[in-house]
Structure formats: structure tokens, C-alpha cells
């Protein structure tokens, strides 16, 4: 315990040193603006009136931050408040993050020390037992220190709660465990992925009734967190925060050196994840699908062997898969993996010392040693890409595209190595049936899109979309975006269409065709719901070349038919302009748009 306290104190001191650092300025600015809003105007108001896009329970944390800041400074003193080096705010926001780090380290130690056959490792005159070593691994991990104390990100809070849930689960307190895990998810949405594993554990260990009670506990926590929204009849905001924060930046990789970073050759932050990579299948779909496959595999792993070691490995696998496979991943999303690596450390040391030195053990050691460095490098680069002056000395010189690709390759190799090890632990019959099923599913999807001679444009997601009013509606008018009571079929001058895109001037859509199509046909016209004064112009561009121009069209014109060749076109651009007379009433539709192979 004494040694632990020394380690924790040391970890705390290191972190204290970084508190004055402005960190990732934009993130801290968001904490400032949201905590100010939530402290002054309340939780629901903040979600309604600001650009808040984090998880719902995080609002409570921000409220506490906002109130705590008032004890140290005056948030209405804007000059002071918005200074990047506002030490009071940096302290208020970073201290809980640091505390969560320390508590996690303590939790790792506490959980592991209860195990039998603890191994001791000698480092000079120090004899470190493996729980202590695991705590130190977490505590002095450069990625963990940099992400929280330096950057100002809050991954540590969700991770600490996941650890608490895991401890409770292993202590046979499933309801509390699942309640805490749900809270972790509502604080940090990525933590949702551990819930199925925990629920499976409860089902296997505690039976059906406890499993159902756990689901009820999840519901209770969800509704308790959502109480302000229930009282104000705004639960749609909670749903929106949970669903839409996942699609905020539709790009291949948000600086995560993962599979998609490699695909984009280092341009992950500037490449849309709507690009078609397999026939008509987008990168986003492939990413999500493959993550889903690995999620199910981790569940299979736990299903057949429900013990602590497998649970930890399954969680580690899932953390890594989440970082590596889906698109839109941030550099910091690898965070929870270090918790599970720390928890696995004693097992690895034990196996090593008992001369069970298989390739697997060496591989785990490689991950343990390499991942903190590469993840830290990834994190640091992400910071200096945005704030070149805020990086650590010398390290900023290593931000080379080729090196980032190497690191992404290392991450991919580590992930596949881990996957091979863990897939091998699944019963062959089970995994082959499952994998075959997944291949068939993907194959069926591919086959349908490959064999189709004509494809409705509505089935493809544009890689860029913008319009000056409302949102792009599929098979519905733009006015339908107001809500279910306003839904209408597309029509132009009362000629009805079942398929198409309801839009509004000025609008621009870019579709990635990848030279897969020969012809494009569509009808165009002002929607029947457009104003009597509506006037628009439809234009179609193929790789920046004008292919069609409708001329000025009004509400009472017949729809126009377009039939143009698009062979060899990589990007198809659909434009609706306001015909230079303002956008009032300019509801305009792409009707029955079809691509032909």
C-alpha cells in the first residue's frame, strides 16, 4: 500500500506539472462554453441551444465544473475566462480527469492484489508485485498522462467507471455493475460496447432473472440521468445525442492511425467515409460491419469461457477493434485498451515466469511495450497538427506522413496478431459458422449491388451535402424534415414520385461514383410544396464538367427529364441554385434519379 501511495503521488505530481498547459484549445473551449451554459441555463437548455454533442450524463459533469469554476473565478469576466491559459479553469477541468486516472490505477491494483499466486518483479532493490506493476503501467503510461493532464480530454472518467463496473461484476454485484457501466456509457458513448460483454457475463454467471434485472437497472440509470429531459418533454434530445454524435465528422479517420488511415494514405482527416470501397458499399459501412463482426466474436469468446481472464481479453479486443475498424475514429479512442492491458499484465508475467513462453506471451509483451509509445505518438501528432506550438519539444519533428503510416501499420499488425490469438481460442465450429455467416451476409449485399444494372441514387450516401434550408430528405419532400406530421411524397406540379431526393436551393451534393456507371437519368422540378414564387436551376457536373443545365424552372413547370452519360465519372455533382433571385420557396427535387451500369 505504501509503495502504491508513492506511485500514485508520483503520478499525481507529474500530472500536476501539466495542468497549466492549455492542452487541446478547442476541446477546452468547448468545456468552457458548455459548462458555462449548463451552470447558468441548465442541462436541457444547453442541449437545445448550443452545439453540445457529447453524451447526456457528461452534462452533469460539466455542470459541476461550471459551478466549481465560480468558486475560483468569475465566468462573466470574459477576457479572463476565455484566456487559453486560464489556470483556474484548467485546474477545475483537469483535476477530476487526473483524479479519475489515479483512481483507475488504484482500482487496477485493488482488483489484482486479491488474486492468488501474485508474482514479484525485481527492479533494482525494489520488489514490485504485479498489481503494483500493473497500476504503474497505467499510471505512467505516456498516452494516459498526455490525454488527460496535458490535452484536457475526459476519457479517464469513463474508463474509471468501466473499471468500477468490472470490479463490481467480479465481486458478484451485477446490478450495481451494470448500473455503473450504463453511467459510463451515458458519460462517454464509446463505453456502450462493453455493456453486451457485461450482460453476457451476468447471463452466464447469474442466470436469466439477474440478466433481466440488469436490463431493468440499465433502464433505471438511463431514466435517472434523463430526468431533466423527461420533465421538459425533450427526450428526443437524449436520443439525438446518443445517435447523432456518432456521425458528426463523416471522415475516414479523425487522426486515428488505424486501418482507414492506411487506406487514406495519411489523409484520413480529409477523406469522406462515404467513399465507395467495395462496389456500392461505403467505407463507413465496411468499418461498422467489420467492427460488428469482431464484437460478436468477442461475445463468442466470452460465451464459451466465462472467466475474468477471458472477459479482460474480450474487452481489450473490443477496445482495439473499436479504434482500428470503424471510420470516424479519434486518436484517443484507444484509451480503454490500456486499462485492460494493465489488468492482463499479471497474467502475462505469470505465464512468462512459469516458463510458459509461447509466441502468444511474447506477442502480449510486444503489445504492452509498443502500444503506449505508438498511441502516444499518435496523440501527440493529433495535437500538433492543430496547435503546432503546443507540442512537446523535439517530438514535433517526428510528425512525418510516412512515419504515421508506419505507426498505423504497426497498430494494424498488433490488432491482427491479437485477433488471431483470440480467434484461435474460439471453438472452431462456432467461429467458422459465424464467420461464414458474416461472409455470406456481406456477399449477398455485394452481389445485389454488383448484379444490379440500375441503382437508385437514393441508395448511395453523398460524400458531401449542403443546402441552404432544411435537410436533404430521401423519398420525402424537404418540408417533411419538420416532423412526421409534415411527411409528403415527392411531387412536382402534382406529378408524384415514390423515389427521389427532396432538397432546397441552394444545394450541392457530391456522389462518389468511382467510374462504375455509364448513364444517369433523373427528373427535376420544383416540388409541389414550393412557393408560388419559387425559381431554381438544376445543374449536373461530372468531375467538374457541366453535363446538364435545366435553365430556370418555376413551380408550375412540368418536371424535366435528364438523361446524360456518366461513363468514367468519378464524382457526380448535383447542384440546385436559386436562379439568382433568392431562395424563398425554392423546394426542389431530384426525382427518380437512377444510375445505369
Amino acid at each position: 500500500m505504501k509503495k502504491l501511495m508513492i506511485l500514485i503521488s508520483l503520478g499525481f505530481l507529474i500530472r500536476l506539472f501539466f495542468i497549466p498547459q492549455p492542452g487541446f484549445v478547442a476541446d477546452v473551449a468547448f468545456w468552457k462554453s458548455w459548462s458555462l451554459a449548463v451552470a447558468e441555463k441548465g442541462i436541457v437548455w444547453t442541449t437545445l441551444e448550443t452545439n453540445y454533442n457529447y453524451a447526456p450524463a457528461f452534462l452533469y459533469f460539466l455542470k459541476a465544473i461550471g459551478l466549481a469554476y465560480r468558486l475560483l473565478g468569475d465566468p462573466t469576466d470574459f477576457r479572463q475566462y476565455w484566456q487559453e491559459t486560464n489556470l483556474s479553469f484548467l485546474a477545475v477541468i483537469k483535476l477530476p480527469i487526473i483524479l479519475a486516472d489515479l483512481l483507475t490505477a488504484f482500482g487496477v491494483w485493488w482488483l489484482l492484489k486479491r488474486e492468488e499466486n501474485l508474482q514479484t518483479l525485481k527492479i533494482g532493490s525494489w520488489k514490485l508485485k504485479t498489481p503494483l506493476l500493473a497500476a504503474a503501467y497505467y499510471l505512467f503510461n505516456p498516452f494516459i498522462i498526455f490525454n488527460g493532464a496535458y490535452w484536457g480530454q475526459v476519457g479517464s472518467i469513463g474508463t474509471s467507471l468501466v473499471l468500477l463496473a468490472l470490479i463490481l461484476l467480479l465481486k458478484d454485484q451485477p446490478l450495481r455493475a451494470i448500473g455503473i457501466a450504463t453511467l459510463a456509457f451515458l458519460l462517454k458513448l464509446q463505453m456502450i460496447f462493453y455493456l453486451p460483454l457485461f450482460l453476457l457475463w451476468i447471463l452466464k454467471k447469474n442466470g436469466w432473472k439477474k440478466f433481466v434485472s440488469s436490463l431493468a437497472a440499465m433502464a433505471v440509470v438511463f431514466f435517472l440521468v434523463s430526468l431533466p429531459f423527461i420533465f421538459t418533454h425533450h427526450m428526443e434530445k437524449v436520443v439525438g445525442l446518443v445517435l447523432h454524435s456518432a456521425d458528426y465528422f463523416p471522415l475516414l479517420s479523425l487522426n486515428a492511425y488505424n486501418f482507414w488511415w492506411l487506406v487514406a494514405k495519411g489523409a484520413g482527416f480529409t477523406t469522406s467515409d462515404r467513399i465507395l470501397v467495395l462496389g456500392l458499399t461505403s467505407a463507413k459501412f465496411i468499418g461498422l460491419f467489420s467492427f460488428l463482426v469482431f464484437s460478436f466474436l468477442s461475445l463468442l469468446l466470452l460465451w464459451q469461457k466465462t472467466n475474468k481472464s477471458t472477459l479482460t481479453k474480450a474487452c481489450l479486443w473490443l477496445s482495439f477493434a473499436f479504434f482500428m475498424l470503424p471510420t470516424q475514429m479519434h486518436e484517443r479512442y484507444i484509451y480503454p485498451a490500456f486499462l485492460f492491458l494493465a489488468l492482463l499484465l499479471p497474467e502475462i508475467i505469470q505465464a512468462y515466469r512459469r516458463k510458459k513462453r509461447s509466441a502468444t506471451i511474447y506477442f502480449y509483451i510486444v503489445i504492452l511495450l509498443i502500444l503506449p509509445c505508438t498511441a502516444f505518438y499518435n496523440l501527440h501528432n493529433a495535437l500538433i497538427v492543430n496547435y503546432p506550438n503546443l507540442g512537446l519539444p523535439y517530438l514535433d519533428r517526428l510528425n512525418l506522413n510516412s512515419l504515421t503510416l508506419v505507426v498505423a501499420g504497426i497498430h494494424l499488425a498488433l490488432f491482427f496478431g491479437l485477433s488471431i490469438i483470440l480467434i484461435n481460442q474460439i471453438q472452431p465450429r462456432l467461429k467458422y459458422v459465424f464467420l461464414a455467416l458474416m461472409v455470406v451476409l456481406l456477399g449477398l449485399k455485394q452481389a445485389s449491388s454488383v448484379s444490379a444494372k440500375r441503382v437508385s441514387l437514393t441508395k448511395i450516401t453523398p460524400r458531401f451535402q449542403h443546402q441552404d434550408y432544411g435537410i436533404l430528405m430521401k423519398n420525402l419532400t424537404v418540408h417533411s424534415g419538420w416532423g412526421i406530421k409534415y411527411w409528403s411524397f415527392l411531387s412536382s406540379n402534382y406529378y408524384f414520385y415514390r423515389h427521389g431526393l427532396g432538397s432546397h436551393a441552394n444545394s450541392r451534393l457530391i456522389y462518389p461514383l468511382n467510374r462504375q456507371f455509364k448513364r444517369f437519368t433523373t427528373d427535376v422540378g420544383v416540388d409541389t410544396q414550393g412557393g408560388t414564387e419559387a425559381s431554381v436551376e438544376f445543374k449536373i457536373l461530372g468531375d467538374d464538367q457541366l453535363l446538364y443545365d435545366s435553365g430556370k424552372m418555376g413551380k408550375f413547370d412540368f418536371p424535366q427529364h435528364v438523361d446524360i452519360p456518366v461513363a468514367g465519372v468519378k464524382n457526380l455533382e448535383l447542384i440546385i441554385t436559386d436562379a439568382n433571385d433568392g431562395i424563398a420557396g425554392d423546394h426542389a427535387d431530384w426525382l427518380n434519379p437512377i444510375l445505369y451500369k
Partner: protein
Amino acid sequence: MKKVNQLLPYFLLAGAIVFNLWVLSPELTIKSDPNDNIFQFGLVDRMNQVWQSTNNPLSLIDHWVPNWALGYPLPFYYSHLPHLALVAIYRLLSPPLTIFQLFHLLQYLILALTPLSLYLGARKFGLPKLTAGLVALFSSHLATDGLYGIDPASYTWRGYGLSLQALSVFFLPLALGCLWQAVKEGKKYLGAILFLSACLASHLATGYICLLSCALIPLAFIKIPVRRWHVIVRKLFAHYCRLLLTLTGVFLLLAYWLVPLIFNNQYHAVSLWDPPSKWFSYGFKEVVNLFLNGDLLDYQRWPLLTALTLIGFFVASSRAQKPKYRFFALLFPVWFVLFFGKPTLGGLIKLLPLASEYHLHRFIIGVHLSALFLMGIGANRLVKRRSSIGTIILIILLALPVYQGTNKYLGPNKQWIRESNARFDRDWVDFEKIIQEITRQPPGRIYAGRPGNWGKDFKVGPTPVYMALSVRGLATSGFLPETWSLNSDPEQFFNEQWPQHYNLFNIRYLVTPLDHQIPDFAQEIGSFGNYRLSQVETSGYFDLGYSNLAVLAQKENILNIIHLWMISNSVKQKQFPTLVLKGSSGLTNQIKMIDEVNYEVLGQKYNLFANPVFTQAQAFKINPKGKVLQEKVEFQKYEAMIEIDKDCQSCLVVFKMTYHPNWQTKIDHQPAEKLMVFPSLMAARIPPGMHHVSFEYQPSSIKLLLLASGALALIAFSLFQKQLRRQIRF
């Protein structure tokens, strides 16, 4: 205290019914409806006319309804037994009420007694009496913002007046409960068949929900975890056999209605004027938002029933070792997911039979029904192990806000009905004169605006004039842009400034507000209070025409081409393209619609707007030469003497009534081949000379055969129930 506990479920049931009787009592004073009940009463009124006029008993289950959308055989496609039952009660028992009062009295009783149906349904599932009582307690008090579920907004005067849905929902829990017993125990097949048939016959959409729900019943008997697969499969097979046997009985009983309906489905419109949400439902996000905001069960009040549903779901799930609880734990999520509809489930929804022509938003009935049972289970769990006093207090605390909510919603109902009745009494004096005047005039349709224009605010009491006229047996145009007649969608393109459209639809009369400018070619007959009656010259229900083009299409693809035809000179020229929805046409000049706007000629694809079919530049010329000399309308038979000039070699006689195969066409008393022409009218080829032409709607005699098979099946089931039980065993 023990006695109190024993009697409590009955108190809850009685309380729920008494409250309903009180809070719904203003419904008995209605003089005019503002909602779907106008349509329903129109059908009752028509059934009453048929009862009086026909010698053919089959006409009672299949007759022509000329009131809307150029006529349509609504009983052929739509529920008719409730209307028949009502008319039978009226005719056979001669109660001291008008048929309108009887209509509302029965609806009132059905709504008030809904808790009884839920109570009995819950008991048939073997749920405890207190649970059943609690289900009954909440059964009339769900609340939505008019989502067509099992809530007062669907049924009452201030709501949608969906009286057939109310009737079907009354039978729904009974049908499901009996089906449960039939599948579980292999007995009481007859009850299950009768209640499910009643549910389907009352409202096909609600019956469909019962059918889908009962498909889950055998699954509820699978014990989890599955240990011996072969036993499970054998049991599952036996349970599905019992279910199938019951459904076969239902099918045979209703075959007279369902079989012709399925085989003539192409003459049943899928309207694009219906909002997409009706067809597709609302999608995952909207449904989840509705539920979490309490708007699916507790609109504008505390989400108590939503919470009880969730509690009930978890309680039922935790007791899932018992099949009845497993069923409800399964039923609610299945309906909740199905209610997401097409926006979320996409093509998967097509796996459900007939789903492509189903209003998926009605799946809310499944959500509501399953939620009601869960509420009872949840509430019972809350009061469990409490003292009698504690139980009663808790039930009161749960019920009070819910009942208050219903009372708050229905409070204005009473006042608004009173006010509307007063307005109706005031308007009726003049309106009745208009009706009398029209009935004195030659037969023809009436136009009094439509929902999309000035007609919406032109009313008699609370009822738009176009609806008020139609409900009194007069043929109107403009109302019902819905999923029945294929003419209901094109009819919305009627242009009141174009004389050719009046002639096309035989709109002879215009009823307008005094301040409404009537077209120059219309002649005023007279003014009656706020109403003006005018007349337009038409050729009557018959006209002459040509058809030199055939359009082969599916019904989903005809609206745009019909719209283009309606605004073209072809209407003036009386060129009526032949519409072929099934089979082929003998005409050489034909096009085939591929989708809403594209068509094919000799394998080449064209677009309606890039390559117009009906060119505007065609010279004005009325081709068909001849005249309609005499016209006679008698119940379901329309006759005329028609003179055709000798140079009119390929003339058509066009009968301005919606096409249906059940129309019998005769020329000079000899059967003649009938055609379907634009927009969806009847026609027949007619040679030069003077001819007697008649079109008569006759119910198909196949119905008699199917009715007989249904009756036999019912007798067989009642006689051999015991043998069936012995045969299908595990």
C-alpha cells in the same frame, strides 16, 4: 379484507366501464359527425338502402356504393358485416331510434365496454384476476396525439371516429385469448375462429395485427435454454398445426370476402395522397422519441403508463419461464420494432404478407395492445405483497392522473358536440332544401369543393358539405382521396373551371357558398341560406368515346399518365385510352408503364415529360358522332338509349363509373365485352345505330359457394372439436 382482495378486480373492471359510460355519454347526443364516422354512416345508410331495394341477398355483402370517387364496391373490399349487423338490428328489432342514433349508441357501448374485452382476454391467457382488472382499468386511457392507436383520439367525436377499428379492437383481445387457448390446449377452436373472424371482419387492418400476433404464440411455448431440440421441434410443429387449423377455419369462414378481394386487388388504389407516414410508419428514431417522451402512451400527461409498460416488460421477462409471460415479453418488442416500419426495416417489411398495401402506421395497435397487458402485469407487481388498503391506495394513485388525463381530453368533447349540434340545427333547414332540390333534378354527381380547397371550410354544422351530401346517399365528387377507388386520386385533378371535367365525371351540380364565383358555363338553380345550387350541362352517366391507345400498367404507376391525360385535349376529343391492369390489350397502339414516369414502346424506353403521350398541340375535334338519348338509373342498374352515327365505326360507350369486373354490360340486352378506360371508367365497344345499353352491378355468384364452404367449415369445427384435440397431440 380477503373479500376486498377477491372483489377488487371486479371493482376495477366495473369502475373502468362506469367511467367510460359517463365520460363518453356526450357521444349519444351527436347530430352530425366531423370525422371518419361520416364515411361509416354513409356505408350504413347505403346498406339500409340495399336492404330495402334488393331481392338478391348476396347484395348485402357485395354492392355498389355510388357516393364517392365515381363509385366503388366498398363492401367487396372493405368491412361490411358490422354495417349489415347494424342494419339488421334496426330492421328486425325496430328500436325506437333513428338508424343514425342506433349507429352512435352501438359505438358508444363498444367503447364503454372495451375494458370488459381486455379483462376477458387477459383471463383467457391465464393472467391473475387482479392483473386482468388492472389491464381493464387502463384499457381506455392510452393517449396519443392522434396516432390511430387504441386511444380516445381514434374513436371519439373530437377525434377520428374510427368506429370499425373500435369494434375490431373490442374483439382483438378475445380473439388472441381464444387463440392462445386453442394453441395451448388444443380446444375451444370454435371460439377462436369466431372471435378472430369477427376481428378481421370488423377491420381488416386490426385483424391483421391479430394474425401477426398469434404467429408468435407457438414460440412462447419453447422452453429456453433449449436442451432437446427434437422435442422442441415436435412441440413447435404441433402448436403451429393447431394454429394453422384455427386460421384455416377463419379463412374458410371469410373466404367469400377474402378470396375475391385478393384476386381483384388490382382495382384497389394505393393512394399517393395518403401521407407517407401512413404507408411506411415513422421509423426507429421517431418511434423511440415518441415512446421516451411518453407520446406513445401518455400524450400530454405524466408518462405513468409508459413506466408501467416498462416495469411490466421487465416483470414478464423475468417470469419468462411461464409461457404466458414469455408471450407478452415477446409481443411488445416485436410490435415496437415492427412499428418502426419501412424507414428502418426497409425491404424486410415486405416479408410480411400483404405489407406493401398495408398502412404500417396502424402497427401502433399492436404496440398498444401488448403495452396494455404489460401495464397490468407491471401494476400487479407494484401492488404485490401490499395490504389491501395499500393496494387500493396505490391503484388510485396510479389511475387518478391517467383518468384525469382522459377526462381532460374528453371534457371539450361535450361542449364541442353541443355547439356543433346547435350549428347543425341552424344550417340544416337550408341544407335540407338543397338535398330536396337535387333529388328532384336528373341524376348526376355533386361537387361542393374538396379537402384541398374551399370545400374544407364550407360546412353544415361541423361537417364539410361534400361529406354531408355524400352521407345522405348523394353521389359526390372530391371527397375520399384515399385508398379505395382507382378514381379517387385522379378525381383530385378535377378543375372546376373546365367544362370537360364536369362532363368526364358527370358532375351536374355545384353546391357553393354564396360568395364563391361559379364558372360562366354553370347555371344557378337557386340559393338556400348560405348555400347556392348550380347546374352544369353534361352527357349524363353515359357518353361516347374512342380508344386508339392502350396503356398497360400496374395500378401504382397510372396516376401521372392519367393526370397528363386529364389536362390534355384528349378529354375534349373524348379519346379514352384503354387501361390494362391485367392481361393484354387487342390494340396495336400500346405503351407499357415501367414506373410512375417512364414507359416502354417496342422495347424502347421513354419518359412522360421528355416524350409526351398526349400532345397538347392536337387539333380540337370531337370525334365520336352520336348521342345519348335517354338515361335511367335504378338501384345498381344504369340504362340508356344511344344513337351512334354510321361513320362512327369504332366507337365506345363510356359509362362514367369506376371500373370493376362485377359490372355486367349489355348492349341490346346481349352481354358485351367491357373495357377499362381512362381514368378508370367502364366502357364497351358499340356499333353504329340505335342501341339499348345497360350496366348493372351484380355480386359474383362465387361468393355463394365460398359462403357455403365457410358455413360447412364452421359446422365441422363445432362437431369435431374433440376429435381434433385428440388428433393433434405432442
